[in-house]
């Protein structure tokens, strides 16, 4: 085989493989978009077409008319938003103390926090439900936010801890010499310097709170309190046997597009954050 044919085969295989990877990643999402734009008659065609023949937005209108989907979106925004803010505050305090301050047993503290990330949620589901019910927190925002803070704290603390460690120590030392207190150093110097890290970590926290299903499904039992994943999982038509797939796909697209956009914008930081959480030793 000449080098030229070898090169040609390599390029050919590469192009096919790359197309395969792209189709793998995008097709289900693409199909949701296409299905959401099809009128009902087209949806169940025995030979589904790759593009809607008569595109319509009626599914997007119905999803808000026939069910409280906007309420579900608001619920998700409130729960994920407050979770993210709280986790970032708690996580950056803990992360900074572990990364920088003199403290005995910090390895144990970090191990304790990290161990929670390996807890199977199902193992605490029952007891947590009983506790939240006793507190009257079932069907309330705080009943979901507090558990979410606990389950997102480990990764957040770990990533921020790594981030603070990489900041130049000299600036904080200079501030200390100038008589700046530890807390003031933290708020006026460390946090502003860490803004990019905080944003990326916050986004990861937001996504995991936004995507969570098991707790939301168990602790929010009224449709008006459902978060988006629960509303979509519980999606039902007028009768048990008639699933409104067009509407369902419209709902899926509505909540996925902003998420996908955010992920694409912050892709580099997310990959860095995730690999430090999952792989870094």
């Amino acid at each position: 085989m000449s080098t030229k044919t070898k090169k040609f085969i390599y390029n050919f295989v590469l192009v096919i493989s790359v197309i395969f990877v792209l189709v793998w990643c995008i097709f289900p999402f693409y199909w949701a978009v296409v299905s959401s734009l099809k009128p009902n008659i087209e949806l169940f065609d025995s030979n589904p077409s790759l593009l809607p023949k008569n595109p319509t937005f009626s599914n997007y209108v119905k999803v808000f008319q026939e069910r409280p989907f906007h309420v579900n979106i608001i619920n998700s925004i409130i729960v994920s938003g407050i979770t993210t803010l709280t986790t970032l505050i708690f996580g950056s305090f803990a992360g900074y103390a572990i990364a920088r301050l003199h403290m005995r047993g910090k390895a144990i503290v970090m191990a304790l926090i990290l161990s929670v990330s390996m807890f199977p949620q199902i193992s605490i589901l029952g007891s947590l439900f009983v506790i939240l019910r006793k507190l009257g927190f079932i069907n309330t925002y705080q009943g979901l936010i507090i558990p979410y803070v606990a389950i997102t704290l480990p990764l957040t603390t770990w990533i921020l801890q790594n981030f603070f460690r990489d900041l130049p120590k000299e600036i904080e030392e200079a501030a200390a010499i100038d008589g700046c207190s530890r807390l003031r150093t933290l708020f006026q110097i460390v946090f502003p310097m860490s803004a990019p890290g905080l944003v990326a970590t916050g986004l990861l926290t937001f996504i995991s709170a936004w995507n969570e299903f098991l707790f939301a499904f168990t602790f929010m039992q009224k449709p008006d309190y459902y978060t988006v994943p629960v509303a979509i999982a519980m999606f039902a038509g007028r009768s048990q046997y008639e699933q409104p797939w067009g509407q369902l796909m419209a709902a899926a697209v509505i909540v996925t597009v902003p998420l996908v956009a955010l992920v694409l914008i912050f892709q580099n930081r997310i990959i860095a954050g995730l690999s430090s959480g999952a792989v870094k030793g």
Partner: protein
Amino acid sequence: MKVKTKETVVAWWMVFPAILVISIIAFFPLFKTFYDSFYEFGLRPDIERKFVGFGNYVSLFKDSRFIAALKNTIFFTVVSVALETAFGLLIAIIVNQPFKLRGMVRAAMLIPWAIPTAISSQMWKWMFNDQGGIMTRFLENLGIIEHGVPILGMPQTAMWAIIAVDVWKTTPFMALLILAGLQLIPEELYEAARIDGANLWQRFTKITLPMLRSTIAVALIFRTLDALRVFDVVFIMTRGSVNTETLAVYNRVLLMDRAFTGSWFGYGSALSVVIFLLISIFAIIYIKSLKLKLD
């Protein structure tokens, strides 16, 4: 010395909120689950609480539904993690080659991971639908399934459909993790091997694989931890019917559905403990393989 003591006090105050929240939400309920697993009781107030020792555990291992769920969970875990690792490695190698728009392809790989599992499960459920489902049509055309077979309604096919969704969602992510390890391999190694006349396969088995061993090991255990507690995708695709029920799905049935009608909560707690112990084994291996260093 005095400064150090003051700093220690500040440090403890700073970790306190985090420790408090995880203690209330994770450690205390876990402890309580262990405690409850030795009792027979339900969530209805009129059901009497009775100490049964290891009774719940004994009955659990005689429960055929538990055994089936355990088998399903192990099958799901082994098959999906194996496929995700193999495809993940392949995709990592593909996107590590230089080509135009490489950054764009790598970004697209985050899409399956970013879509909530509850939503992607519904997207796939639609694609696997017996009427108008494009995957159903595709598999029929390939001759893999017969016409008119509801994929999610048959024991032989439903679990594979569930595995397909998990593999779809997680493989690109796995590939990105492996890619991070791949980029750490120095190019000189390959050049030296090429000069020595090593072919593509030899370079792959003698350089790439050994250099990636720890990355793959960590990703593999990380995924195993996740797969053993799988809930969302199974629950949404089949509700655990047609022999697809996993441990977590059965556990929720016991704790949340049956516990209100009979004395099943203690029994459910015992299953929660079993799941916890099962995952702990892998978690310990995971921690050992990471060799956590905190100065």
